[in-house]
Protein backbone atom coordinates (compact mmCIF):
# COMPACT_ATOMS: atom_id res chain seq x y z
CA UNK A 1 0.00 0.00 0.00
CA UNK A 2 1.55 3.32 -1.01
CA UNK A 3 1.95 5.80 1.83
CA UNK A 4 2.17 9.50 1.15
CA UNK A 5 3.30 11.86 3.84
CA UNK A 6 2.08 15.40 3.26
CA UNK A 7 2.37 18.58 5.24
CA UNK A 8 -0.86 19.67 6.89
CA UNK A 9 -2.55 22.63 5.24
CA UNK A 10 -1.65 25.73 7.26
CA UNK A 11 -4.57 27.52 8.97
CA UNK A 12 -3.76 30.64 6.95
CA UNK A 13 -1.44 31.85 4.21
CA UNK A 14 -0.64 35.34 5.44
CA UNK A 15 2.62 35.32 7.40
CA UNK A 16 2.99 38.98 6.39
CA UNK A 17 -0.06 39.88 8.48
CA UNK A 18 1.24 37.79 11.40
CA UNK A 19 4.56 39.67 11.35
CA UNK A 20 2.91 43.08 11.08
CA UNK A 21 0.51 42.36 13.92
CA UNK A 22 3.26 40.85 16.08
CA UNK A 23 5.27 44.06 15.71
CA UNK A 24 2.25 46.05 16.88
CA UNK A 25 1.73 43.73 19.83
CA UNK A 26 5.36 44.09 20.88
CA UNK A 27 5.26 47.86 20.79
CA UNK A 28 3.85 49.68 23.80
CA UNK A 29 1.77 51.93 21.60
CA UNK A 30 0.27 48.98 19.81
CA UNK A 31 -1.46 47.96 23.00
CA UNK A 32 -3.20 51.26 23.59
CA UNK A 33 -3.50 53.29 20.44
CA UNK A 34 -3.14 53.12 16.70
CA UNK A 35 0.44 54.02 15.91
CA UNK A 36 -0.04 54.92 12.29
CA UNK A 37 -2.63 55.12 9.62
CA UNK A 38 -3.87 51.62 8.70
CA UNK A 39 -2.32 50.12 11.85
CA UNK A 40 -4.41 47.49 13.64
CA UNK A 41 -6.36 48.44 16.73
CA UNK A 42 -6.11 45.65 19.30
CA UNK A 43 -8.86 45.50 21.92
CA UNK A 44 -8.22 43.15 24.83
CA UNK A 45 -11.31 42.79 27.01
CA UNK A 46 -10.78 41.17 30.39
CA UNK A 47 -13.85 39.13 31.24
CA UNK A 48 -15.64 39.07 34.55
CA UNK A 49 -15.80 35.26 34.55
CA UNK A 50 -12.49 33.74 35.70
CA UNK A 51 -9.25 34.67 34.00
CA UNK A 52 -10.36 35.17 30.44
CA UNK A 53 -9.63 37.53 27.60
CA UNK A 54 -11.57 38.43 24.47
CA UNK A 55 -9.37 39.83 21.72
CA UNK A 56 -10.72 41.87 18.81
CA UNK A 57 -8.41 43.29 16.17
CA UNK A 58 -9.88 46.05 14.02
CA UNK A 59 -7.83 46.26 10.87
CA UNK A 60 -8.63 46.96 7.24
CA UNK A 61 -6.04 44.41 6.16
CA UNK A 62 -8.64 41.76 7.02
CA UNK A 63 -10.56 42.61 3.89
CA UNK A 64 -10.75 39.44 1.78
CA UNK A 65 -9.35 37.24 4.57
CA UNK A 66 -11.81 34.52 5.76
CA UNK A 67 -12.95 34.86 9.39
CA UNK A 68 -11.25 31.70 10.69
CA UNK A 69 -7.96 32.71 9.05
CA UNK A 70 -8.15 36.08 10.78
CA UNK A 71 -8.39 34.34 14.13
CA UNK A 72 -5.48 32.04 13.30
CA UNK A 73 -3.37 35.04 12.23
CA UNK A 74 -4.15 36.82 15.51
CA UNK A 75 -3.20 33.84 17.67
CA UNK A 76 -0.02 33.29 15.61
CA UNK A 77 0.90 36.96 16.07
CA UNK A 78 0.45 36.70 19.85
CA UNK A 79 2.70 33.63 19.82
CA UNK A 80 5.30 35.39 17.67
CA UNK A 81 5.21 38.44 19.95
CA UNK A 82 5.87 36.23 22.98
CA UNK A 83 2.49 37.03 24.50
CA UNK A 84 1.89 33.47 25.68
CA UNK A 85 0.24 34.54 28.93
CA UNK A 86 -2.58 36.20 27.00
CA UNK A 87 -2.82 33.28 24.58
CA UNK A 88 -3.45 30.90 27.44
CA UNK A 89 -6.50 32.79 28.68
CA UNK A 90 -8.03 33.81 25.35
CA UNK A 91 -11.55 32.50 25.02
CA UNK A 92 -12.56 34.50 21.97
CA UNK A 93 -10.58 35.94 19.05
CA UNK A 94 -12.08 38.06 16.33
CA UNK A 95 -10.73 40.10 13.42
CA UNK A 96 -12.93 42.77 11.84
CA UNK A 97 -12.42 45.57 9.34
CA UNK A 98 -13.31 49.10 10.42
CA UNK A 99 -16.51 48.91 8.39
CA UNK A 100 -17.50 45.56 9.89
CA UNK A 101 -16.76 46.94 13.36
CA UNK A 102 -19.05 49.89 12.64
CA UNK A 103 -21.82 47.61 11.36
CA UNK A 104 -21.54 45.37 14.41
CA UNK A 105 -21.31 48.22 16.92
CA UNK A 106 -17.76 47.39 17.96
CA UNK A 107 -15.71 50.43 18.98
Amino acid at each position, binding site marked *: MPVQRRKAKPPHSRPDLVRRLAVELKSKEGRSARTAKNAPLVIEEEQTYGRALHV*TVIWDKWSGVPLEER*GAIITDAYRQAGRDAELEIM*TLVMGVTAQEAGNLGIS
Partner: protein
Amino acid sequence: MSLLNRVSPVESLQEIESAQSDRYWEAMALAVSDGGHSYGACYLLGYVIELAIKSAYYRFVGASPVADVGRHLQASGLKGRERHDLEAWYEILFSSRIQRGNPMDPVVAGAFKQRIQVAARHWREILRYRRAIPAESECNELLGIADWLIRNHRSLWS
Protein backbone atom coordinates in the same frame (compact mmCIF):
# COMPACT_ATOMS: atom_id res chain seq x y z
CA MET B 1 -56.70 14.77 11.62
CA SER B 2 -55.29 18.26 11.56
CA LEU B 3 -51.70 19.24 10.82
CA LEU B 4 -51.19 20.29 14.44
CA ASN B 5 -52.38 16.90 15.55
CA ARG B 6 -49.89 15.21 13.25
CA VAL B 7 -46.76 17.01 14.47
CA SER B 8 -44.94 15.54 17.42
CA PRO B 9 -46.19 16.83 20.77
CA VAL B 10 -42.61 16.59 22.01
CA GLU B 11 -40.00 19.24 21.15
CA SER B 12 -36.97 16.98 21.13
CA LEU B 13 -33.46 17.38 19.81
CA GLN B 14 -34.32 14.96 17.01
CA GLU B 15 -37.38 17.01 16.04
CA ILE B 16 -35.39 20.25 16.16
CA GLU B 17 -32.62 18.88 13.95
CA SER B 18 -35.11 17.40 11.47
CA ALA B 19 -36.99 20.71 11.38
CA GLN B 20 -33.70 22.52 10.80
CA SER B 21 -32.97 20.37 7.76
CA ASP B 22 -36.55 20.71 6.41
CA ARG B 23 -36.55 24.51 6.83
CA TYR B 24 -33.16 24.72 5.09
CA TRP B 25 -34.36 22.92 1.97
CA GLU B 26 -37.65 24.85 1.97
CA ALA B 27 -35.61 28.07 2.11
CA MET B 28 -33.45 26.87 -0.77
CA ALA B 29 -36.56 26.04 -2.83
CA LEU B 30 -37.90 29.55 -2.23
CA ALA B 31 -34.54 31.17 -2.94
CA VAL B 32 -34.15 29.53 -6.36
CA SER B 33 -37.81 29.73 -7.43
CA ASP B 34 -39.10 32.30 -9.90
CA GLY B 35 -41.40 34.97 -8.58
CA GLY B 36 -39.44 36.80 -5.89
CA HIS B 37 -39.75 34.60 -2.83
CA SER B 38 -36.48 35.78 -1.28
CA TYR B 39 -38.22 37.27 1.78
CA GLY B 40 -39.65 33.86 2.63
CA ALA B 41 -36.24 32.31 2.03
CA CYS B 42 -34.56 34.80 4.40
CA TYR B 43 -37.27 34.26 6.99
CA LEU B 44 -36.76 30.50 6.96
CA LEU B 45 -32.97 30.80 6.93
CA GLY B 46 -33.16 32.80 10.16
CA TYR B 47 -34.99 29.89 11.73
CA VAL B 48 -32.40 27.47 10.37
CA ILE B 49 -29.72 29.53 12.15
CA GLU B 50 -31.77 29.66 15.37
CA LEU B 51 -32.38 25.91 15.28
CA ALA B 52 -28.70 25.18 14.60
CA ILE B 53 -27.55 27.15 17.66
CA LYS B 54 -30.30 25.67 19.84
CA SER B 55 -29.50 22.12 18.81
CA ALA B 56 -25.79 22.73 19.48
CA TYR B 57 -26.71 23.97 22.96
CA TYR B 58 -29.02 21.03 23.66
CA ARG B 59 -26.39 18.59 22.45
CA PHE B 60 -23.75 20.26 24.62
CA VAL B 61 -25.88 20.05 27.76
CA GLY B 62 -26.59 16.38 27.06
CA ALA B 63 -30.22 16.52 25.99
CA SER B 64 -31.76 13.18 25.06
CA PRO B 65 -32.45 12.86 21.32
CA VAL B 66 -36.09 11.94 21.93
CA ALA B 67 -37.13 13.55 25.23
CA ASP B 68 -38.67 17.01 25.41
CA VAL B 69 -36.04 19.74 25.74
CA GLY B 70 -38.27 21.79 28.03
CA ARG B 71 -36.16 21.44 31.17
CA HIS B 72 -33.00 22.44 29.27
CA LEU B 73 -34.83 25.44 27.84
CA GLN B 74 -35.90 26.44 31.35
CA ALA B 75 -32.34 26.01 32.59
CA SER B 76 -31.06 28.32 29.83
CA GLY B 77 -32.86 31.17 31.58
CA LEU B 78 -34.13 32.55 28.28
CA LYS B 79 -37.68 33.83 28.38
CA GLY B 80 -40.26 35.14 25.90
CA ARG B 81 -38.77 36.69 22.79
CA GLU B 82 -35.25 35.96 24.00
CA ARG B 83 -35.95 32.40 22.93
CA HIS B 84 -35.72 33.57 19.30
CA ASP B 85 -32.79 35.90 19.94
CA LEU B 86 -29.81 34.58 17.98
CA GLU B 87 -27.23 36.52 20.01
CA ALA B 88 -28.77 35.41 23.30
CA TRP B 89 -28.52 31.77 22.22
CA TYR B 90 -24.93 32.31 21.15
CA GLU B 91 -24.11 33.77 24.59
CA ILE B 92 -25.83 30.90 26.40
CA LEU B 93 -23.88 28.29 24.43
CA PHE B 94 -20.56 30.17 24.71
CA SER B 95 -20.87 30.78 28.46
CA SER B 96 -22.20 27.28 29.22
CA ARG B 97 -19.12 25.78 27.61
CA ILE B 98 -16.85 27.98 29.73
CA GLN B 99 -18.80 27.25 32.92
CA ARG B 100 -18.51 23.51 32.31
CA GLY B 101 -14.77 23.72 31.67
CA ASN B 102 -15.01 22.87 27.97
CA PRO B 103 -14.70 26.20 26.15
CA MET B 104 -14.95 26.48 22.41
CA ASP B 105 -11.79 26.96 20.41
CA PRO B 106 -11.30 30.77 20.64
CA VAL B 107 -10.93 31.15 16.88
CA VAL B 108 -14.14 29.19 16.24
CA ALA B 109 -15.88 31.19 19.00
CA GLY B 110 -14.88 34.48 17.34
CA ALA B 111 -15.90 33.41 13.83
CA PHE B 112 -19.17 32.02 15.24
CA LYS B 113 -19.95 35.21 17.16
CA GLN B 114 -19.23 37.44 14.19
CA ARG B 115 -21.55 35.41 11.96
CA ILE B 116 -24.33 35.46 14.53
CA GLN B 117 -23.98 39.24 14.92
CA VAL B 118 -24.36 39.60 11.15
CA ALA B 119 -27.37 37.25 11.10
CA ALA B 120 -28.98 39.21 13.94
CA ARG B 121 -28.72 42.40 11.88
CA HIS B 122 -30.91 40.82 9.20
CA TRP B 123 -33.24 38.52 11.08
CA ARG B 124 -35.62 38.49 14.02
CA GLU B 125 -38.75 36.42 14.34
CA ILE B 126 -40.83 39.61 13.91
CA LEU B 127 -40.13 39.39 10.17
CA ARG B 128 -43.23 37.21 9.93
CA TYR B 129 -45.42 40.29 10.49
CA ARG B 130 -43.54 42.54 8.06
CA ARG B 131 -42.80 42.85 4.38
CA ALA B 132 -39.82 44.05 2.40
CA ILE B 133 -37.65 43.04 -0.50
CA PRO B 134 -34.35 41.71 0.81
CA ALA B 135 -31.20 42.54 -1.10
CA GLU B 136 -29.59 39.54 -2.75
CA SER B 137 -26.51 40.13 -0.58
CA GLU B 138 -28.62 39.92 2.61
CA CYS B 139 -30.13 36.61 1.57
CA ASN B 140 -26.68 35.34 0.57
CA GLU B 141 -25.25 36.36 3.95
CA LEU B 142 -27.95 34.43 5.80
CA LEU B 143 -27.45 31.43 3.52
CA GLY B 144 -23.67 31.54 4.06
CA ILE B 145 -24.15 31.67 7.83
CA ALA B 146 -26.65 28.78 7.81
CA ASP B 147 -24.25 26.74 5.67
CA TRP B 148 -21.34 27.51 8.02
CA LEU B 149 -23.36 26.44 11.07
CA ILE B 150 -24.36 23.18 9.39
CA ARG B 151 -20.77 22.44 8.31
CA ASN B 152 -19.24 23.35 11.67
CA HIS B 153 -22.03 22.17 13.96
CA ARG B 154 -19.94 19.58 15.76
CA SER B 155 -17.27 22.10 16.77
CA LEU B 156 -19.95 24.20 18.47
CA TRP B 157 -20.91 21.51 20.97
CA SER B 158 -18.07 18.95 21.15
